[in-house]
Structure formats: structure tokens, C-alpha cells
């Protein structure tokens, strides 16, 4: 490349990543078509959409900002309880409930963000985990409000926008969740491609240098942690609204661990990684637990091990399987 590049080329190069690819349209159209094409799997579509959103919210902090968390379920669960309680005690409209859940989860996220500002990966892992476990204990103790270990029952959801009732087939649920997921996905996509998103990657790559070019590291961390919490809360709210209840395990450790597995399987630092991971993990779990209800864990474990041995970045790119090894 002998001739020097002009600003126009550079601008094109920078904007290239922000463009929509044809495949992306296909993915979303297919997602929305699924409940029609395969009505019997609408429930699965709903569940996958929800965990995909949850995984993407984790990606904002893990993949883009480099903050490990084993307690992301804290926000998922908080959103779920918030939405369920809102429907039960205030009003049954799902969209208002969703907004409410998002706001309170964001508030919790802002509060909890003080815990992740300092320390090593291990410290953050444990502090986030501890926060989630505390919340779990709290929900258990406040049984007059949350129903304790029996779960919060008697949540009746109104129709979406006053028009679409949640049906037994789960189609309304699937479309409702998919719509919310799409909207939030668009927001997240904007965020990670913006200058703001670039500062997050800078913090992930080299915190010292990020500070030395004038990025307010702490306030960026608080902001993104709050956003991630809000979106995790939205995912939790969707689960509570489409299933009509909330129980302690929305806050449980397993949920935090599962979402981390999904995200890592799908690939971090890539929003579609959360989606891909959610699809792969959920389908695997569902198929395996149907085939062998007692021992599916073994096969999931084996797949995880193989996945790492083969190289997880290659798993989702089959064309590299037979190429030469580095």
C-alpha cells in the first residue's frame, strides 16, 4: 500500500464495523418467524431470547469492559422480583412493569458498582458472587413479601399493550420477549460501537493508559455496570412476566454460572456471542436432559471440556476446523 490513505478511507474503515450485515437481518427475521413456523417451540424461543439478553448484558461488563462477575444473577433476579411484585401489587400491565424493573435494577447496579472498582479478577468474582448470595438470602428472609422459598405466586399479567393476552402456547410471550430483546440489542449495539464503547475497551485493555489519556475510569465502570444491571433486570422481568411467577432460584448461583458459560461458549466481546451461546447451551441442555434426564450433566461437561481443548473461538467458525493449526 504505497499511496497514503486519506481521511475518507479511515472513516470508512472505522464505520465498517458499525454497518449491518445481511446475515444479521436473516437472524432477526428468523427469530421472529420461529414462533409461527414452529409453534410448538415458542416457549423455548421465549426462554432462549431471555437468557440471550441476560448473556448480552453480561457481555457488556465481561467482554467489553473486562470485569468478571459470578453474581450477575443478582440483577436478573432483582428485575424478576421487581416485575412480579409490581404486577401483583401495583398494576398488571407488562410494559410499565418492565420499565419499573429496569429502573430499580439500574439503581441496584449503581449501588453495587462500588464493589467492582478495585481489586483483582478473583476479588471481583467473589464480591459479585457474595452480593448475589446476600440478595438471595434476603429474598428468602423477606418471605412476607417475596414468598420466600415457595416463590412468589399469584402474579397475573395483563395483556401486552392492552391487546395481546399471554397464551398457553407461549407465542405472545415469545414475540413480546423478542421485541424487547431486539430493542435493547439495538441500544447495546450502539453503545459498544460508540466512542463511549471504545473507552470501555480501552479500560479493559489497559486501565493505566486509559487513565493517562483522560478517561474517567471509575465513572465509566459505574455507568456500564449500571447499564448492564438494568438490562439484566429487564431479562429477569421478562422471565417473571412470561412465566407469571418468581422464585428464589432467579437469584441463585447456578444462574450466574450458567450465563457465564453461555457467554464464554458463544464468545465474549461480541454481542451475538451471547445469543449464540444461549442457543447452543439451551438446546444442548434441553436435548440432553430429554435423552438422559439423570446424566445430562456429564455430556454438558464433556462438551465444555472438548470445547476448550478444540478452541472455543474455532467452534463457532467451522471453516477453521480443517485449516492448519497455528
Amino acid at each position, binding site marked *: 500500500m504505497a499511496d497514503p490513505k486519506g481521511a475518507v478511507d479511515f472513516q470508512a474503515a472505522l464505520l465498517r464495523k458499525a454497518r449491518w450485515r445481511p446475515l444479521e437481518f436473516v437472524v432477526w427475521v428468523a427469530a421472529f418467524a420461529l414462533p409461527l413456523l414452529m409453534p410448538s417451540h415458542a416457549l423455548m424461543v421465549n426462554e432462549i431470547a431471555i437468557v440471550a439478553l441476560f448473556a448480552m448484558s453480561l457481555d457488556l461488563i465481561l467482554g467489553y469492559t473486562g470485569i468478571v462477575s459470578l453474581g450477575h444473577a443478582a440483577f436478573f433476579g432483582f428485575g424478576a422480583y421487581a416485575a412480579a411484585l409490581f404486577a401483583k401489587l401495583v398494576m398488571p400491565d407488562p410494559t410499565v412493569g418492565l420499565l419499573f424493573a429496569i429502573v430499580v435494577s439500574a439503581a441496584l447496579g449503581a449501588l453495587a458498582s462500588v464493589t467492582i472498582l478495585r481489586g483483582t479478577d478473583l476479588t471481583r468474582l467473589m464480591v459479585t458472587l457474595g452480593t448475589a448470595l446476600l440478595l438471595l438470602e434476603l429474598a428468602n428472609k423477606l418471605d412476607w413479601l417475596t414468598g420466600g422459598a415457595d416463590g412468589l405466586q399469584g402474579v397475573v399479567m395483563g395483556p401486552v399493550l392492552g391487546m395481546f393476552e399471554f397464551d398457553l402456547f407461549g407465542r405472545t410471550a415469545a414475540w413480546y420477549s423478542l421485541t424487547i430483546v431486539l430493542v435493547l440489542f439495538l441500544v447495546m449495539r450502539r453503545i459498544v460501537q460508540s466512542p463511549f464503547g471504545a473507552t470501555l475497551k480501552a479500560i479493559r485493555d489497559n486501565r493505566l493508559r486509559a487513565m493517562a489519556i483522560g478517561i474517567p475510569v471509575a465513572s465509566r465502570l459505574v455507568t456500564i455496570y449500571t447499564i448492564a444491571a438494568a438490562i439484566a433486570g429487564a431479562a429477569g422481568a421478562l422471565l417473571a412476566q412470561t*412465566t407469571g411467577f418468581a422464585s428464589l432460584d432467579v437469584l441463585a448461583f447456578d444462574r450466574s454460572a450458567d450465563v457465564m458459560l453461555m457467554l464464554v461458549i458463544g464468545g465474549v466481546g461480541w454481542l451475538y456471542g451471547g445469543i449464540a451461546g444461549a442457543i447452543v447451551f439451551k438446546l444442548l441442555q434441553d436435548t440432553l436432559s430429554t435423552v438422559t434426564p439423570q446424566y445430562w450433566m456429564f455430556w454438558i461437561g464433556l462438551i465444555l471440556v472438548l470445547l476448550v481443548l478444540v478452541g472455543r473461538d474455532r467452534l463457532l467458525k467451522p471453516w477453521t476446523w480443517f485449516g492448519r493449526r497455528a
Partner: protein
Amino acid sequence: QDNVFKIGLILPMTGQQASTGRQIEAAAKLYMAQNGDTVAGKKIQLIVKDDTATPDVTKRLAQELIVNDKVNVIAGFGVTPAALAAAPLATQSKTPQVVMAAATSSITEASPYIVRTSFTLPQVSVAMGDWAPKNGIKSVVTLVSDYGPGNDAEKYFSERFALNGGKVIEKLRVPLRNPDFAPFLQKVRDAKPDALFVFVPSGAGSAVMKQFLERGMDKAGIKLIGTGDVTDDDQLNDMGDGALGVVTTHHYSAAHPSAANKKFVEAFMKANKGMRPNFMAVGGYDGMRVIYEALKQTKGQGGGDALLAAMKGQIFESPRGEVLIDAQTRDIVQDVYLRKVEKKDGQLYNVEFDVLKAVKDPGKAK
């Protein structure tokens, strides 16, 4: 297709509650093996699903079973939240829901389509609250796991015990995942009650028992009493001789002296490499029976409502003794036994020495 009758069995097959799922699945299969898989001209098909005791999974599985597999009955349900999660679906789709394990009193009120074949904690705790004061136990400390069933046990035992003139000195709740009971037991020891009343989920029973002995509490004159979960048949043999003499109340013991039970226990152990059936198994076994009988009565005709109607009011001889499905509450009415751990042929058993006849769930009384 029309000639198939499908039962969706949702159980925790992995995780903490796995043994519940294992026992129930084995019992259900045993019932089918003994009674054939064709009833009223219909072929019975059992679809087992693992919900890992996570209620939102339970709910999705139930919904898929109802909508996609078009099952006629959903059954199983290892823990209370799981049973409750599926309840609205049962109502909405008019599918009978047979609860074979979960034991919180309020479950049957969650849907008019729920029928229970296990037991309720109030049922068995109240029996202890009656027996203890009559047998020299005047003061008690309760120790329960901090979740629905534990709270039920604590509440109903204490109330009845106090009503009968006993004194509950202290009520302790331990976290569900509790690795070490030492501090709680030390507290009990320092409180010096006549007895310690325990409810913990069956896996933790042996830990409580051992630490109870290790702390020398029996020598300090404190008796151990509780619901039958503590001396679960599944575990009892491994607990060692320290368990001898522990008195519990429960609705089923593998040592229940009846011909029906003998047959059940033998067949069960033969089919499962010597695994002893426990109260979970009998819940599953009777649950299958309730479904079979209902199908027979309706002659394979009619939908969920007909089946449900046929389930209500069933009276039959279960391995645990005579039972009735109360037509009003759809909950089980059964005998509750007082048992003491004894050694028979080198094995430990809960040997029944007294019985309260036809106990209704006291949770429904109010």
C-alpha cells in the same frame, strides 16, 4: 395416537434433590410393570423430564408437555415452588396435576386440578406435637431448615406442642445449604431442653444425627425427635447405631407391617439393585395408582375434568396403609405413625409403635 394416555412426569433428576426424582421414577416404573401398561384400552406412556428443581424450568416443561406432547396428566414435582409454578397451567389447560413429593400444605389450594399423594408437613408434625408431651417431653427446641416445609413443620409442631402444655424454648432455623450444624447444636445443648425437634431435608438428616451424638447430647439427656425425613429409609442404614431409639412421626416406613407393603418393598428392591423405597417412592407409587384408577373409572373417555372427578374420593390400601383422597381438598388423608429406629436382621428400620388414624392436613383446617 388416540389410544395413548400420556403422563408427563416432571422430577428433579439432577442436583440436590436428585434422590427424590430417582425414588419416584423407580416407583412409577414399578407400578407400571406390576399393573401393565394398558388401561381401559389405552396405552400408558410415561414421559420423564428433569427440572433440576428449578421452577421456571418446571413451568416450561409442564407447558411444553401440555401443549406439544398433549399429555393427559402432569405429575411428579419434587419441591414446593416447582409444584406451585405448574399450578396455573393445570388450571388453564384443565389438566390434572398429581403432586407426588412436594409437601407444603398450601399447594393443593393453588389449583383446583391438583391432587396430592405424598403428605403434608403439618400432618406429620402435629402428630409429634401430640405424642411428645404425653411421653415426658415438656420442653423442646426446634431446629428446621429455613424454607417452606421447614417453616410449616416448625409452626404446626410448636402450636400443637404448646397447646398440649409443652414449652418451646427456642426456634432455630438453619440455612438450607448448611455445611456444619455445630453452632446450632451447641446452642440447643446450652438451652438444655428435654428434646430437640428436627426437620431437615432428608440428605442432611444423617449429618444432624451424627453431630448430635458427637456433641454428647444424648448423654446430656436431650432426646432427638422429628419428622420422618430425619430418619429417611433411603439413608437410615448408613447412619449407624447412633440412630437407634430416635422417635419420629411419618406416614410411611419401609418396615410397615402389612402384606401390601412387604410385596411393594420386595419388588422395589429387586428392581433397583437393593435400593430401599422411602416415603418419596410410596408417593410416586400411589400417584400412579390414582391415575390408573381414574382412567379405569372413566373408561378412557372424557378429558381432564372427568379424570379429576374420578381421582377425588378414591380410597385404597396403599403400602403405607389405608388412604383417602379427600374430595373437598384433593389432599391425602392418611394414618400417621409414631416410629422408633430399631435393628431388625442387622438392618436399621423405623419400627412403628403407635398410630394416629386418618389424619387430615391441619393446614386446611382454618
